[in-house]
């Protein structure tokens, strides 16, 4: 369970980017956060990976308060939350394979496993055989897929995708959205931040709309107390699936 409780993030110049945000996300949910540029979507992601500290309020993941997290435990937290960055953050002088491998190296995988896993991930995100190409040799949609592959490389229980369809054509955007849905159907909690909802079938996800750092609407209408008993659509599907699912535990202290 991810829980933002009265979270405010302001900067020394007085700009308030997140304003008294209350938000709970259950394991396995697919959440789409929409809002204009500057509404605070990216800040939510940065708060989630402790790239930023809230000015007020608390953020907890499975009861662990991120505001009280010791600096030495931050890397472990970040390994549990895959992030597809708005600017991709794909390292330009490393090949696609190396870019994905770096996440696995950080997590301590050995080289043999890394090579096999990179190939599997590239297959999964739909760019097989591109491991040895440099980012500059890929199309925009392919870079986006490589970024997703890197984000899910360590099977994180949470995936935050920041504008994953930005600057992509309609067909590619739909494919990326479907890919995120597939990842969610494997049990990963997916939080997708986007400013463009026209291409997304919001019926298949919980939709939160924010403006100036405040939640304006949340399609999850049920009271907070009922949320724990709610089974997300993706999980209902997963119950029928005999394949083993990803670990839902968020704890970042197990390594």
């Amino acid at each position, binding site marked *: 369970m991810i829980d933002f409780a009265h979270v405010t993030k302001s900067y020394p110049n007085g700009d308030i980017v997140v304003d008294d945000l209350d938000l709970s996300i259950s394991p396995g949910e697919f959440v789409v956060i929409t809002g204009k540029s500057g509404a605070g979507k990216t800040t939510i992601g940065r708060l989630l990976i402790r790239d930023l500290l809230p000015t007020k309020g608390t953020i907890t993941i499975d009861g662990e308060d991120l505001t009280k997290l010791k600096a030495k435990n931050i890397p472990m937290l970040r390994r549990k939350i895959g992030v597809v960055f708005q600017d991709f953050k794909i390292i330009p002088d490393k090949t696609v394979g190396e870019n994905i491998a770096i996440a696995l190296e950080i*997590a301590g995988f050995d080289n043999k496993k890394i090579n096999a896993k990179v190939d599997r991930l590239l297959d999964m995100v739909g760019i097989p055989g591109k491991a040895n190409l440099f980012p500059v040799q890929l199309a925009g949609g392919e870079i986006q897929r490589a970024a997703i592959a890197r984000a899910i490389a360590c099977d994180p229980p949470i995936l935050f995708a920041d504008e994953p369809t930005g600057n992509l054509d309609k067909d590619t955007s739909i494919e990326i959205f479907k890919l995120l849905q597939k990842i969610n159907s494997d049990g990963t909690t997916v939080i997708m931040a986007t400013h463009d909802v026209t291409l997304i079938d919001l019926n298949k996800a919980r939709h939160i709309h924010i403006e100036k750092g405040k939640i304006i609407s949340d399609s999850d209408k049920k009271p907070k107390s009922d949320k724990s008993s709610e089974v997300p659509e993706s999980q209902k599907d997963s119950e029928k699936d005999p394949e083993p699912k990803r670990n839902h535990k968020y704890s970042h202290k197990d390594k």
Partner: protein
Amino acid sequence: MNTALKNIRRSPYQAFAAIFVVSITLFIVGIFSLVTIASQSILLNFETKPQIIAYLKDGHTTDQVASLISNVTVNSGVKKAVYVSKQEALELYKKSVGNDPVLLGTVTDWGIVTADILPASIEITATSPDAFKSIASILEKSDIVSATPQGKKEIDFPEDVISELTKWTNAVRMAGLVLVIALSVACVLTIMIIISMKITSRRMEISTMKLLGAKNFFIIKPYLQESMIYGFIGALFGWVMCLIALLYSTPFLAPRLNGVIVFPIKYEIYLILLGILLSIGLLISFFSSLFATARFVKRSK
């Protein structure tokens, strides 16, 4: 390790600069270590030679000599006291001048050098230069020690040579130490600058790695490895340069240091020197990169 090697391949001139500075530093360290060891051997050689020679008057008796030797050896600072007769003095003289006909007097009007014109003597070896004064005072009181027309006893007292030599040895050591420290600082700064530049140029990659959950050690490890490769290769080059310098100077040094240092130098000495230079090279490079990366770790908190 692959990342470290890749970093070196990508910036060969920086790698060359680092290796060059380490090599020169360790070459100087090696040379001064050898000079220090050699000067120590020379000093030791001087110290173990008879340090005080008292020339005796002609006509002394064996009893008088035995009495003087016994008086001198009572002194706790005396290691050895030996009587050198006129005949032995001649043998020593011949040995020291070799076959030089001028010095042997065979081609001069002054006649051949014979035992008669050389004085007998007592050669004393002290345990330390501190004992020189008390030994000299005993000798000065003796009647059988010859004196100059001015009344000064003929006692060779090479304390000045040793103290002069010690002074020179210390000066060489000090100069070497200053040079080694200066070069080591230059070495540390060069590696620090190179590693800092590399970290700065890969800031975006490093920040991405941090966002992906990399610990600081994971990020700095390739830079530490890269720096230690510089230290290792630099030490090897420095050692090879020492080796070449030593082999090249052996024909010059061997006759001059005959009896003091054995040439050619044993290969064990070369191996010990290699071990020392590798250790210093790796330490310098490790700490240089550690300083550079520590600044990064501090900044990236």
